[in-house]
């Protein structure tokens, strides 16, 4: 028999599925900004922020919302192999597969893009762009210059990546920058409650008070991925007690002890 905490635990599995997207005030702002940007004749749009701030899910949400309306393509996994990457781009542009033993002639591809300028408007969403080499990024820039392909690049905000962005030739082509930040306590409270309510876990959601959210926030600093990890661990511990030692939990109260145990488990607390 499954524990009552099993579904709660699964709510917080980290994923970028559209169903898991929680429309928070801050994320709605970012989404609208991104949506507005792709309507503009911009070559490149940069979405950046620390890991776990919701970049991937934002791109995925955009893709899912426009996949039937626009010529939009989502590259979730970065392709470090240049040949493979341009095979993918070729397919996006020409809608044809290339035989695996052939190689894309890049200058021909650029020419082709110029030819279709004004006829088609292709949007390519590149997640984890920090994985691409600078050479590949330079080629992406050349493709974007053709004005027939618009690139939305999502990358982590670290010192190293900021150096790449800072490169003048690259920066000049980025017309829109959307920065995603960690959530506030209110954001996290809404996020947790909305996630649970989405799966009809009302009782559990009601038991999680502002005090508990404050404690969770203290450890996760408002990072959504860390919050997901923490709540997943909390409900996993709850699940264990529910199945093995019911006396140790109160189903009507959210336990501070279990939050702290989870923080110890995840390394937020160094004992």
């Amino acid at each position, binding site marked *: 028999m499954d524990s009552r905490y099993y579904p709660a635990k699964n709510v917080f599995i980290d994923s970028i599925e559209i169903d898991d997207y929680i429309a928070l005030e801050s994320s709605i702002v970012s989404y609208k900004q991104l949506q507005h940007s792709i309507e503009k004749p911009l070559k490149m749009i940069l979405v950046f922020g620390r890991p776990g701030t919701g970049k991937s899910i934002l791109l995925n949400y955009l893709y899912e919302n426009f996949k039937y309306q626009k010529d939009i393509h989502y590259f979730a996994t970065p392709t470090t192999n240049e040949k493979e990457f341009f095979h993918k781009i070729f397919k996006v542009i020409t809608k044809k597969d290339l035989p695996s033993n052939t190689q894309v002639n890049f200058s021909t591809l650029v020419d082709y893009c110029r030819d279709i300028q004004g006829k088609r408007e292709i949007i390519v969403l590149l997640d984890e762009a920090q994985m691409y080499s600078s050479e590949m990024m330079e080629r992406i820039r050349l493709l974007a210059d053709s004005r027939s392909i618009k690139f939305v690049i999502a990358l982590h905000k670290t010192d190293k990546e900021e150096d790449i962005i800072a490169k003048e030739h690259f920066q000049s082509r980025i017309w829109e920058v959307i920065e995603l930040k960690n959530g506030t306590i209110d954001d996290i409270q809404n996020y947790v409650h909305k996630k649970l309510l989405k799966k009809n876990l009302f009782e559990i959601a009601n038991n999680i008070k502002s005090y508990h959210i404050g404690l969770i926030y203290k450890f996760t600093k408002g990072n959504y991925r860390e919050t997901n990890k923490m709540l997943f661990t909390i409900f*996993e*511990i709850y699940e264990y007690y529910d199945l*093995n030692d019911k006396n140790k939990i109160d189903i009507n109260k959210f336990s501070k*002890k279990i939050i*702290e*145990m989870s923080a110890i*488990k995840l390394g937020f607390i160094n*004992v």
Partner: protein
Amino acid sequence: MYDIDLLEKEWRRYKIKQTLPWIGFIFILFLLLLYILNRNLIFSQIEKFFPKDKNISAKIVKVDATPSVIVKEIIQEIKVPEKCIEVNKTEIIVKEITEVEEKVIPKIVPAVVNDTLYNEEIDKEIAEEESIKEENNSKPKMNIEFSEEEVDKKEIDKPHRRKYLNIIVTDKDSLDDNNKIFDTLSIVEDRYNKNNNYRDALYLADGYYEKGDYAISQKWALLSNSLNSNSEDSWLLFAKSKAKLGDYKVAEDILEAYLKENSSKKAEELLKKMQLGKF
């Protein structure tokens, strides 16, 4: 699934670590509160065990005056912390000396003037003193002349009424406030002038010796000795004063003369010190 038991243990450890500073803080706060509330009690306890020596000491003396012989006995030298003793000539009243242990108190003469027991006791002492005095006349006296003052025998023989010291203990602060710093030596000196008590003379010799007035000290030691040649202290004080004045030869001679007739460890030690140049 995790090892929940291990996780629980780690959590307990974390809670202890988290709570310890608070326990320490509360403990310090408690001690502080305790100190604030019982400050006076704590200080009084500390003073009880470690009395402060403010160098204020006084000799509580029992004085009786008879027509011919004056009996004065130094009962006990009591260090009275932060207190001072005021001496008055009419009666003995000891106030606020709560710190003095019971063992000491019996020697202090009760301050009741009409106490018959006390009077009898004093009479006995006077009789003893008189017999001693008679014996003294046959014993050798110091062979040193002192021209400044002669003992007025007539005045000694002159009968006068019994007198008592009135000892009033007051706070040092109150003394300071009223500028009541008095000179015990001058009071005793006045009293000596009236009753020619050898103990008063001895007391003055000792007092001036302590003050460093060796010339005056030797005078009083001589006077004391002239009244009671058996008083070892008068011999020693005279010798010590002489030595302090640089007259070591005379000092040694005095001690040797005394040791011929008496056996005294103190005198022997003093003589030895002087001979070795350690005094």
